[in-house]
């Protein structure tokens, strides 16, 4: 049985090798670059692609297409051009639309015991300027950046270490790199696959000229003067920003390369001649020749989109623009689609369990109070009024699209039940009320909850208005306190704020292999327990230890997950953690699964009709491979 299985596997591997080699010889020259190839400026396509390029095949609603065309995008600020790095989504390993990891830039990754990762680079893979991409680029990062005492004063990026242990990095040959730890590191590959990833490779041949070790003192002095930096490190950091895409001279592996020097209102990204992906017909990807990013005020972007100024737009569009865009659809050359967001909750209330006021703190730490607050929220009304009934009402938990989903997680204590809410509050001893009907606390003060908002969207204020009235019926008076982002965060961290409103779980579509840290108190930015999270983050130097038994259980489970040896164990841990959240309701989710409008040029193909639009885990468009989007009719 095993032997025949092995035979099958090896046969199919052989077969796919054959297919790859057959396809590689049928390569078609990229039309956009034909002039440069014939003049000798660029090598022919067979030398520009790696020997084993990544081949993308199509099925279902997607089909192989043609090259050509210019995709226009609208962004709100110059900084937003980093979105192109996210959309391009060329990563060492990447997520597929069904959220499994696959080797992308790398040809393959061998994993042993979950702790030894051998990365295999594609032979003949070149940077966007034609220089070979080899393990030297990984070495430059590890030795000349991450471990350089001037550039990285505190040592390499903390995200690469497990329990404080740094990896052992070996450069086995030109095409092989190995990262190993003594314990399993399930965070390594997801970190490489993230929308804003950890870059463990850099274009060494380009960056060397800015490094003290490889450059003359005089030239370094000149550079410091030119870039108005304090020292050579500033120059190096300035030039080495692959994520931000602000340096057109920096070689990259992304499908499109920025050719415009900032500052500008208009950025043009041109195709990367040495891009490593191709389609099954022998055409080098990306299909689209160039991207044009126009910068305009965020408030005007819905209007401009409706006026046909964008070919693919989701950013800066909101659900309340849908009607306007649908009407503009008739006059325009685009169609409007609705994708889903992927957050565990688009809006959730976070009772600050670390708030300073002792009476409020003990009340907020009592699960019955949190449940009462949740039961007094009329989520259905909110859904109808603001989201046309198209969103999901329920708790801040995993979405139905996740394999870990259970309906109970979503609906437990999330219905609208004023009677039960009042009962729970009575049970807590808050029976006395003042003349407005607001309950009184044990020290005689009225039960007033001040909810901090970051003042960014009217949605939050609207939801709070709707919540306010029903809470009043339960005897709770709600005040919303608008702030700016920094003040908002600082008040939560310090404990001055007793409650806040923000979005919930960043990734609402996890599976057993996803990191469950967001469910435990692992970060200051978890607004329900900022100081416990800080305690974990700083390994005990800041914040303080969690006082609630269930939270400590979550911390333990989070640790166990890392140590788990197989998938079923990890799955069980996830469910345990989700169950604790269901029982304890540490955050009060309001609404999830809000739709996001997407405007697509009518001639643009291979953009899915439905999908989910979020930075994590989808990298917005990344996992749907924008390099495979193509125009059936090119605008003259």
């Amino acid at each position, binding site marked *: 049985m095993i032997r025949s299985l092995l035979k099958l596997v090896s046969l199919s591997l052989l077969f796919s090798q054959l297919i790859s080699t057959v396809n590689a010889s049928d390569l078609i020259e990229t039309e956009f670059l034909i002039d440069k190839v014939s003049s000798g400026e660029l090598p022919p396509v067979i030398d520009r692609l790696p020997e084993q390029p990544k081949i993308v095949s199509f099925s279902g609603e997607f089909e192989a297409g043609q090259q050509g065309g210019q995709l226009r995008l609208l962004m709100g600020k110059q900084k937003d051009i980093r979105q192109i790095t996210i959309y391009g989504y060329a990563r060492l390993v990447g997520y597929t639309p069904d959220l499994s990891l696959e080797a992308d830039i790398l040809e393959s990754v061998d994993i042993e015991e979950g702790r030894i990762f051998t990365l295999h680079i594609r032979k003949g893979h070149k940077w966007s300027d034609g220089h070979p991409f080899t393990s030297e680029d990984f070495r430059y990062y590890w030795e000349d950046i991450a471990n350089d005492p001037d550039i990285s004063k505190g040592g390499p990026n903390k995200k690469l270490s497990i329990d404080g242990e740094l990896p052992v990095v070996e450069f086995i040959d030109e095409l092989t790199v190995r990262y190993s730890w003594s314990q399993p590191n399930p965070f390594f590959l997801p970190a490489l696959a993230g929308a*804003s990833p950890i870059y463990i490779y850099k274009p060494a041949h380009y960056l060397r000229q800015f490094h003290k070790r490889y450059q003359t003192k005089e030239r370094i002095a000149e550079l410091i003067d030119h870039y108005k930096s304090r020292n050579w490190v500033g120059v190096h950091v300035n030039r080495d920003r692959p994520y*931000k895409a602000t340096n057109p001279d920096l070689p990259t592996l992304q499908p499109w390369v920025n050719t415009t020097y900032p500052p500008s209102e208009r950025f043009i990204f041109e195709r990367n001649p040495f891009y490593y992906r191709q389609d099954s017909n022998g055409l080098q990807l990306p299909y689209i020749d160039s991207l044009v990013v126009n910068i305009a005020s965020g408030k005007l972007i819905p209007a401009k989109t409706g006026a046909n100024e964008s070919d693919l737009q989701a950013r800066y569009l909101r659900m309340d623009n849908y009607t306007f865009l649908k009407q503009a659809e008739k006059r325009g050359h685009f169609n409007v689609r609705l994708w889903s967001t992927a957050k565990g909750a688009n809006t959730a209330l976070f009772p600050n369990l670390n708030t300073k006021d002792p009476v409020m703190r003990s009340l907020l730490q009592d699960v019955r109070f949190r449940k009462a607050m949740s039961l007094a929220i009329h989520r259905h009304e909110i859904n109808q009024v603001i989201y046309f009934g198209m969103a999901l009402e329920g708790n801040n938990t995993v979405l139905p699209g996740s394999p870990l989903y259970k309906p109970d997680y979503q609906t437990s204590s999330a219905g609208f039940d004023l009677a039960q809410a009042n009962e729970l509050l009575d049970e807590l001893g808050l029976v006395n009320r003042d003349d407005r009907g607001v309950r009184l606390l044990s020290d005689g003060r009225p039960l007033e909850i001040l909810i901090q908002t970051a003042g960014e969207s009217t949605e939050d204020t609207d939801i709070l208005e709707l919540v306010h009235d029903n809470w009043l019926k339960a005897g709770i008076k709600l005040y919303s306190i608008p702030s700016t982002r920094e003040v908002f965060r600082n008040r939560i961290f310090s404990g001055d704020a007793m409650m806040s409103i923000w979005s919930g779980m960043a990734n609402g579509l996890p599976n057993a292999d996803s990191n469950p840290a967001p469910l435990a108190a692992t970060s200051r930015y978890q607004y329900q327990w900022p100081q416990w999270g800080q305690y974990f983050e700083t390994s005990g130097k800041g914040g303080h230890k969690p006082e609630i038994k269930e939270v400590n259980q979550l911390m333990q489970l989070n640790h166990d997950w890392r140590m788990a040896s197989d998938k079923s164990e990890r799955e069980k841990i996830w469910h345990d953690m989700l169950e604790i959240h269901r029982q304890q309701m540490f955050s009060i989710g309001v609404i999830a699964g809000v739709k996001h409008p997407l405007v697509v040029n009518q001639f643009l193909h291979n953009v899915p009709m439905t999908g989910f639009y*979020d930075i994590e885990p989808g990298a917005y468009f990344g996992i749907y491979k924008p390099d495979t989007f193509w125009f059936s009719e090119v605008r003259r």
Partner: protein
Amino acid sequence: MGSYVIRRILTMIPTLLVISMLVFVIIQLPPGDYLESYIAELQSQGESVDEQKIAFLREEYGLDKPIYEQYFHWVTGMLQGDFGYSFEYSLPVSEVVGDRLFLTILISLVTIVFTWMIAFPIGIYSATHQYSWGDYGLSFLGFLGLATPNFLLALIMLYFANVYFGTSIGGLMAPEYIDAPWSFDKLVSVLEHLWIPVVVIGTSGTAGMIRRLRANLLDELQKQYVVTGRAKGLPPGKLLRKYPLRVSLNFFVADIGNLLPQVISGAEIVAVVMSLPTTGPILLSALQSQDMYLAGSFLMFLAVLTVVGVLVSDLALAVLDPRIRLQGGLEK
């Protein structure tokens, strides 16, 4: 005359110095600094924050230095032409600014010319036909322009210009021309887009100018020499042109001192709404993200523009009006 000019220029310097201090203090007042608001923004977008990079940047940008040192560094830099570093754009301020200063001045100038062209005839007509229907009607229109909040007007005009004329929304030209070299098409596109902000900003300034011109002209028209002229038989048109108008012209030039700050400030808000590539939108976002040197430099630029504009108008007035030169000062 020469001493007057020199005196005016000399008094400008301490004024500008005080303004620079005020500007810097105001920029620093909001709690936190650029990096804090940067971190907050990254967090809210769900992107990862590299704490080490932040600590490095804090040192690199000098945000760990005391305030007076940062101020001193900035002011001395400005005098040498170095306006500091923009954290948001990771570029020196002078590179971020680019075309924007030029475009701000362009829009302000065009708006002032537009305001003149409208206010001048209306003001004269109002003064000579006081209390007539024409007077009331035109004044009313002028005031209507003053009373309408120009940002709302801008948004409405943008939308209708797009629906009826196909003008692309916002900006000073259609996107294709943004980095392209100047050509006839580009000029046409700029003009197509320019009229909306000019009209929107200009209408608010027009009313005030009409009213002031009218008041001034009325004062002049009641003076002795006008009566004498009329008694001597000068035709009214010639009478008007020869004497009171010349005096009012003086006033016109002097009024730039009033008009310029208003135009510049009006231009800022309209630019924000219409996403024009001038100083407005950048200033607003720089203030919000506490991009210190960028915001400070822009505020200084606007203040300098105003001060210089007032200076030019005062000097022009001194040239035109001998009373000022002879009295050696200007009592307004």
